[in-house]
């Protein structure tokens, strides 16, 4: 919301406060100052002067010496090279010490033997164009028209003439304060903060019987209040300079006096108004209703809008003449030939305006106000103010007939509570005097009886609903900096602690850090195209995803059911940026899509890892999984798997407690190609949801008796899985076998083509006595026998 210092001054006398102090005050009461612009910056030493005499420079053909009257006894002498100056011309004169908006510094100087006490300025040098002052862009010195300084004496600062003796504030107004979407609303807050009285604008005008019939019918609940009034004998023309200048400062283009007044009131009081041409309204009747299917309207922006039955429209006897709360119809609004107008000041429900505005893609200053909320009370004030301005400018006769659909409830809310609650909520006491003063400043009538505070709010404060709202107003103006700084000393003791999920996350991340991998965060939503790149089959569960209804774009449109795609994208990003030899991991959620569409999806916490280091292979990757398994207390198995995005011969399901809890393998080279990756990638993921809480385990007693170690190299056929052999060895050898370790796999001569030799190291130990060689031999043979029968293994 843009307001100016001078406009605020219409409502509150700020003469004792600098523009900067005003900005600080706004900040302290919750209005963030996004920008503060002092328009006169650079014009401080530029005044309006009149050239009284021009003489030729004795030593320079192209220079002229001007005597300038700047309202002082003695004229100043300024030398110029401009050719468009003449005796009697009124010009902007930059005096000694001026630092112009374009950065130029002006000093009294000697120009070829003659003194020049300043510089005459072109519009360009003041950084203004024709929109600020017509004629400013002329080639040469800016010439000021005589009639424009009728009320301004010579020597006055140029910014006064330009309407730039002002400061612009761009303020953020909180969503719950529609009443502060206006100059007056903000001035009221400022007055309360500075403890100054609020002045009001004029709402007075004379009305008369006009005999201009107009009927009104409101058929739509989204329009709680509609008020209008007829003005005839309208003298259309440009609005006065002061009004035009203010509209320009806030970024609006002046059009004609009637339209300018509606915009002026919109800004000043926050009430949107619209002026219709009375003669264009068919049947002398206004109807507010929902649009009918197939109806359309060409609005003031000359665009045709197709209307749908959820859009509220203002209609005459024939059809729509305006889009309620957004824009009027071009054909029915004020135009150059308008003689009589109907001024509309209405309230529409904010959700209805917001939906319409979004659906037709048109947002206006008016719709913006309605989206925040407009009260019937404000409709009355807005129309009265517009009519008062019409009378002030003497541009029309005002009807004494106010046409509305209902009466306005001007009553606010009664809120009462114990003043002890203030201390209970804030932790500090606010003196009763301050309570009464602060609330009074805000237009809230407050009385204290005993310990009870009774408040009556003004109707415009729709945001105030209960005691907490009143207390917010109190602390806002009493000062948030007056709060104590206590830190829960008086609350109960609570032990506190981490959630299981969060501590598991910590364990996993700490473990992954040891591997040298870097943690990444990638977006939870992805493009469905990623699933194609991963070669996910059409019937796969991974394609059963939640779809965002209003995504930013296709790239962010579905909730991911796997993490590998995002990891591959980050790998690609890094390779593109010439980063090589790295491993990445992410701990994030994947999301189901439940068949019950009213249920919230399951969110699974997944750890995913990808390795593109030169020395990465299946086994380095698997050893990371095993390290994690140790840290998490899991005993894992691996089972050959068929996963579209992994290499068909180098991939496995990771099994724990008979459940698939993850996948591991080399990324399918076809998939890496789809992601424009020209390196081998090794991958695994683990579903952390299934990991049980790690129990504190008692340590195993240290062995008291020596171990006996035996190596066993056996020859088997290629297809025999070492994992299966391991399980058999462990099962057969029993508890006496302390550990089984694979230490070599050999292929080649003298073995047959389809054979491999696997070497195991078996460690035997008894807890209660030294194991004998005979016992070891027996176990060794038993294991060998089992491997023979189950895998056809032969001792090498």
């Amino acid at each position, binding site marked *: 919301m843009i307001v100016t210092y001078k406009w605020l001054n219409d409502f509150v006398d700020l003469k004792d406060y600098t523009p900067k102090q005003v900005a600080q005050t706004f900040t302290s*009461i919750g209005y*963030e100052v996004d920008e503060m612009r002092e328009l006169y910056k650079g014009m401080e030493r530029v005044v309006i002067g009149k050239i009284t005499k021009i003489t030729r420079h004795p030593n320079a053909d192209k220079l002229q010496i001007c005597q300038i009257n700047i309202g002082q006894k003695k004229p100043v002498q300024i030398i110029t090279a401009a050719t468009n100056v003449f005796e009697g011309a009124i010009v902007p004169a930059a005096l000694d010490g001026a630092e112009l908006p374009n950065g130029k510094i002006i000093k009294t100087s000697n120009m070829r033997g003659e003194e020049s006490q300043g510089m005459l300025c072109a519009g360009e040098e003041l950084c203004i164009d024709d929109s600020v002052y017509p004629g400013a862009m002329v080639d040469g010195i800016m010439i000021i028209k005589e009639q424009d300084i009728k009320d301004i004496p010579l020597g006055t600062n140029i910014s006064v003439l330009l309407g730039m003796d002002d400061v612009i504030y761009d303020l953020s107004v909180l969503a719950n304060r529609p009443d502060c979407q206006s100059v007056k609303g903000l001035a009221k807050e400022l007055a309360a903060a500075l403890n100054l009285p609020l002045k009001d604008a004029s709402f007075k005008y004379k009305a008369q019987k006009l005999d201009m019939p107009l009927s009104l019918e409101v058929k739509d609940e989204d329009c709680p209040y509609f008020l209008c009034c007829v003005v005839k004998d309208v003298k259309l023309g440009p609005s006065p300079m002061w009004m035009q200048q203010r509209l320009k400062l806030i970024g609006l283009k002046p059009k004609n006096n009637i339209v300018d007044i509606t915009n002026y009131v919109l800004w000043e009081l926050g009430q949107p108004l619209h002026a219709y041409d009375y003669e264009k309204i068919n049947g002398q009747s206004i109807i507010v209703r929902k649009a009918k299917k197939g109806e359309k309207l060409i609005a003031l922006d000359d665009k045709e809008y197709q209307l749908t039955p959820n859009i509220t429209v203002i209609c005459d006897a024939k059809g729509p003449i305006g889009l309620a709360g957004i824009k009027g119809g071009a054909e029915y609004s004020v135009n150059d030939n308008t003689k009589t107008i109907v001024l509309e000041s209405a309230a529409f429900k904010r959700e209805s305006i917001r939906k319409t505005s979004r659906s037709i893609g048109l947002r206006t200053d008016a719709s913006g106000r309605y989206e925040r909320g407009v009260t019937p009370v404000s409709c009355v004030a807005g129309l009265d103010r517009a009519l008062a301005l019409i009378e002030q400018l003497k541009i029309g006769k005002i009807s004494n007939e106010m046409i509305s659909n209902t009466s306005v409830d001007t009553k606010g809310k009664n809120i009462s509570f114990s003043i002890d609650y203030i201390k209970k909520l804030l932790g500090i006491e606010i003196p009763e005097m301050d309570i009464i003063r602060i609330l009074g400043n805000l237009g809230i009538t407050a009385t204290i009886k005993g310990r009870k505070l009774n408040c009556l709010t003004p109707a415009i404060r729709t945001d105030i609903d209960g005691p907490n709202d009143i207390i917010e107003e109190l602390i806002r103006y009493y000062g948030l900096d007056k709060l*104590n700084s206590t830190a829960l000393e008086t609350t109960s003791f609570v032990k506190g602690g981490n959630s299981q999920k969060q501590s598991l996350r910590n364990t996993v991340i700490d473990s992954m850090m040891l591997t040298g991998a870097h*943690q990444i*965060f990638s977006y*939870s939503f992805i493009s469905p195209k990623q699933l194609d790149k991963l070669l996910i089959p059409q019937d796969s569960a991974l394609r059963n995803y939640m779809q965002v209804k209003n995504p930013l774009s296709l790239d962010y449109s579905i909730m991911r059911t796997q993490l590998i795609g995002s990891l591959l994208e*980050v790998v690609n990003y890094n390779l593109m940026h010439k*980063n090589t030899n790295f491993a990445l991991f992410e701990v*994030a959620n994947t999301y189901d899509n439940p068949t019950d569409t009213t249920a*919230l999806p399951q969110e699974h916490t997944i750890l995913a890892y990808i390795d593109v280091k030169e020395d990465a292979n299946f086994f380095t990757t698997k050893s990371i999984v095993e390290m994690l398994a140790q840290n998490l207390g899991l005993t894992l198995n691996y089972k050959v798997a068929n996963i579209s995005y992994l290499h068909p011969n180098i991939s496995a399901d990771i099994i724990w407690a008979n459940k698939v809890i993850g996948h591991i393998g080399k990324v399918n080279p076809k998939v890496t190609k789809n992601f424009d990756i020209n390196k081998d990638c090794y991958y695994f993921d683990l579903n952390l949801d299934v990991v049980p809480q790690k129990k504190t385990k008692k340590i195993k007693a240290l062995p008291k008796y020596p171990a006996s170690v035996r190596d066993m190299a056996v020859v088997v056929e290629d297809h025999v899985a070492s994992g299966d052999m391991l399980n058999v060895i462990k099962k057969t050898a029993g508890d006496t076998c302390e550990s089984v370790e694979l230490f070599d796999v050999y292929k080649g001569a003298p073995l047959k083509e389809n054979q491999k030799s696997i070497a195991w190291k078996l460690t035997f130990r008894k807890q209660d006595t030294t194991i004998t060689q005979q016992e070891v031999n027996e176990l060794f043979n038993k294991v060998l026998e089992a491997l023979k029968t189950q895998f056809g293994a032969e001792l090498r």
Partner: protein
Amino acid sequence: MQQKINEITKKALEEISKTQDKQQLILVNSKYLGKNGELSTLMRGLKDVSSEERPKIGAILNEARDTILNSVKQQEDSIENKILEEQIKNEFVDITTPVKPLKQGTMHPIEIVQRDLINYFIEQGFTVQDGKEIESDYYCFEALNVPKDHPARDAQDTFYFDAERLLRVHTSATQIRTMENNTPPIKMISTGRVYRVDEVDATHSPMFSQFEILVVDKNVTMSDLNGTLEKLAKHLFGEKAKIRLRPSYFPFTEPSVEVDATCTHCGGKGCSVCKQTGFIELLGAGMVHPNVLRNCNINPDEYTGFAAGLGLDRIAMIKYGIDDMRELYDGDINLLKQFK
């Protein structure tokens, strides 16, 4: 006899001292002390010595054997030492040779900040609560007192799956789940990803991480909120950090405040990082709205509470001087590897 023993001993010691390696030493050793060694032979001959002399000669023999044994041991030590010295002399590395450091992995900056805050609050008796990212309208808005026609509920701001299910826009949704399942005193924190309809640019992201703080108990005041946040700012930005409260509006808190901390970059003097204000926006907070307490069956006449939510991305960016939010999600190794 005695003389013979002395001669053998003398000869043995001489030969031992001349040995160059272990092999020679073993030979010398067996020559004298072996099964048929010279001294062993003499020892076997002891049985022929007269019984009066036998103890005397026996003692001399034992002494001679010990002397030789000791000498062998000493010579062995000296030979081994020579070998080691030789080995040490030949072993050499250029200690200035550059090496590749053992690579340590890194935690993501958001994770670092998140974990630090979790630990900080757990120490003060807060409990971590897990939340859901895909939430219902009820937990994300309705129960949090967000009016039906509030702009935040619009598809312009919130990602929807259907009329009821959406991606949470704040971690505040977890407040409700926590208050429904627990009775005061409640001191909880919750953290995770949240989502808003924002195009990706240097300061916006459709996904970011939030950290939620909620306290509900008897005697919880806004001054407690003030003190808690002041301590938090000091924890995050150092002892000198101060906070500033500005009035704000959130439907689920009343009064609501925006909390700024003194700019870490300039210490509050004003610089480009803080846009000359000396302050940087830290978080939003307030006293839990009585309607929210009521929605969770907590009596607002008995209990009060405060809540605060801060953006972890923002904290990470301020802390590490990251000025483009996209860098947090690109996964560029050159950035990540700096977070040792």
